[in-house]
């Protein structure tokens, strides 16, 4: 099985979907001739032509709005937002139009739209190239929110997203675009949306994470297993909306102790919802206060390298939190 980077897997998924279904097209800033700023669409313009790989104006609102209109008209758009930080101009289109279309039209119209956006910090990108925006959208019924952490899942989940009849936000951990490698089957396969992945098994502490943090969580889990004999269950959530409560609770019932890691700032982040699920549905299995590890509540990920390090959760910080929880 060939080994691929995360970004290669994303490209492979789009390539296969473009080849499979002529209704699929890609639009976004620099996705055409340039092949995308991260090279996610490299070679696709040459292969599929300008009618299917469409460079857009520098206007996220219109990228998504065009996608919604095309989807309603029977096409299957993949919209690329160059950085998740820039998705905010399209917020109205996503929340008010894409998410509500099926509901508001009584099922007459649906929006099979996929919006891809690199997200997350740790790459020295500073305020406008490091944001985590998932929590804004996981609050919106009508959307699906997917964050893969491995090349295998990135390909399988993106293909599922393209085929999904609903609008799917597909956030890619950009720090892992080239650093995360893994085996990816060459041909057709999909990974279902809505199922978390048990990345590592243990009975002492459950660690919930997604994206880059899922990798860090596994690294931290290996570290504490080696140094302290603490065995962690690591749950890579993969899909943030809809939530895979079953897998989340199964792990918690086993361990009774939960750490939720996300690189967004802490307050009102996605981890709060996981904590609420554990409290309401797992109360009688709880053996320690539920713990969240996130970034501090500052307006953005700082540009300064030491400050960025202070902001970002990393394997060392996760290991410290696991030890604290295991000792409780």
């Amino acid at each position, binding site marked *: 099985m060939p080994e691929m980077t995360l970004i290669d897997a994303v490209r492979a998924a789009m390539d296969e979907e473009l080849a499979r279904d002529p209704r699929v097209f890609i639009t976004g800033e620099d996705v055409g001739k340039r092949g995308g700023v991260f090279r996610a669409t490299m070679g696709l313009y040459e292969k599929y032509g300008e009618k299917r790989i469409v460079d857009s104006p520098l206007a996220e609102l219109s990228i998504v709005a065009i996608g919604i209109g095309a989807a309603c008209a029977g096409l299957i758009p993949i919209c690329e937002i160059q950085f998740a930080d820039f998705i905010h101009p399209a917020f109205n289109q996503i929340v008010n139009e894409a998410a509500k279309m099926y509901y508001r039209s009584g099922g007459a119209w649906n929006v099979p739209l996929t919006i891809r956006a690199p997200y997350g910090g740790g790459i020295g990108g500073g305020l406008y190239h490091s944001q985590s925006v998932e929590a804004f959208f996981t609050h919106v019924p009508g959307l699906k929110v997917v964050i893969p952490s491995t090349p295998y899942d990135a390909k399988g989940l993106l293909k599922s997203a393209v085929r999904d009849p609903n609008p799917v936000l597909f956030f890619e951990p950009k720090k892992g675009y080239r650093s995360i490698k893994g085996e990816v089957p060459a041909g057709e396969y999909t990974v279902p949306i809505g199922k978390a992945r048990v990345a590592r098994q243990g009975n002492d502490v459950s660690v919930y994470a997604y994206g880059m943090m899922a990798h860090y969580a596994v690294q931290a889990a290996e570290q504490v297993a080696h140094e302290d004999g603490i065995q962690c269950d690591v749950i890579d959530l993969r899909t943030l909306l809809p939530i895979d409560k079953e897998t989340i609770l199964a792990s918690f019932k086993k361990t*009774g102790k939960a750490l939720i890691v996300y690189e967004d*700032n*802490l307050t009102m982040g996605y*981890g709060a919802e996981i*904590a609420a699920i554990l409290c309401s549905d797992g*109360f*009688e*299995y*709880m*053996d*320690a*206060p*539920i*713990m*969240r*590890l*996130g*970034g*501090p*509540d500052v307006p953005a990920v700082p540009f300064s390298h030491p400050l960025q390090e*202070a*902001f*970002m*959760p990393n394997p*060392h*910080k996760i290991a*410290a*939190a696991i*030890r*604290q*929880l295991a*000792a*409780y």
Partner: protein
Amino acid sequence: MPTNVIMPQLGESVVEGTLSRWLKQVGERVEEFEPIAEVTTDKVDTEIPSPASGILLAIYVAEGQTVERGTLLAVIGQPDERVEAMPSIVPAHAHEGAAAQTSAPSAEAQKSTAQRYSPVVARMAAEHGIDLTRIRGTGLGGRVTKKDVEAYLAAQAAQKQPASELAPWEQPGGGDLFKPTDEIFAAANAKQATPVSQPAITPIQPPTQPLPSAELSGTLVPHSTMRRAIAKHMVESKLHTAPHVTTVFEIDMTRVMAHWKANEAAFAAQGVRLTLTAYFVAAIVRAAQAQPTLNSRWTDDGLLVPNVVNVGMAVALNDGLIVPVIKNAQDLSLIGLARQVNDLATRARAKQLKPDDLQGGTITLTNHGVSGSLFATPIINQPQSAIVGTGAVTKRPVVITDADGNDVLAIRPMLYATLTFDHRVADGAIADAFMRVFKETLENWR
């Protein structure tokens, strides 16, 4: 400014100790250097002197709990001072961890001690009928963790052999008095399958530890599990649950003794040893049916009055006491009752009672007369409302009035019987009405 009482280092390499007894209670005045608690370690037993004069404001470590050196035991201060539920003193290792920003456990949560239990620990304790104070916590500040409970259960399971089919029979707060813990059952049950020579319950051990006190020489006898269970139930019933009142009746047992003598052999022919206990149970049934208020359980919602009379009978064992229950005593004849009394007493002494034998009692009999006692004031077997005590039947001169109205002195077999009842449930008049039926039943036995 309140002063903290801290678990001291009690000798070289001694890092923990068991708080065996509080010598002062919350609210009491203590003087500096006055002993306020007794502490036991594996090397030394000692008293902890008060570090200050004032009022004992709060106690954070329960008797019997083992804690590390440096643990906060209590706070001493002035009467108007207020203390937190669990202030200060976080074990040093709780501060590790350089997280970017963590939301929990909060500093407050980390201060919890072994006296507070997580939901999963509380649930497991309820499911398995575990007394959590018996488990040594390995969590932060001595917390009992889920793993501690699992380890405890695993140790229990390793001890018992065929006991796995026994349902957990004692729920906290719902247990009848005198019930031993589940371990006793496991042990008792295990005995059935193992050679008779193996004792089911650890007998009182020969003294193993020298008594620490200099002015009082002697030995310290460890408590058996049953002793601890009895102690707990007694304190709970008498001090924390029911206001006890006792009424005493004198009963002429002439008719019963005559009936007994006349039927003893006939009963024996049917394999039943007739004892006075059977008569007493029969009389309790009559009295309970006449005054059902006392055949009851107090609940916050109302008085639970069963439509059956299940009579518990206290059976003395070498190392304690157990109360098997005669179910549906109202349906049994004297011989049926006697047969039940025989069976339960025999199996109780052989430690072969089943959990079900101990459940469902609605009223209890303690026939303390078998050991010569004339009358006693027993403790109510919670959650019941009353207990009947019967003393020794002794021949005494009594004044009786003959058919012609003449008073004469006669020698009669006499009995003092007591009814100890929960004054929340009933008043003296009802209790005495109960005892009148009890008395008339025995005096007019035929």
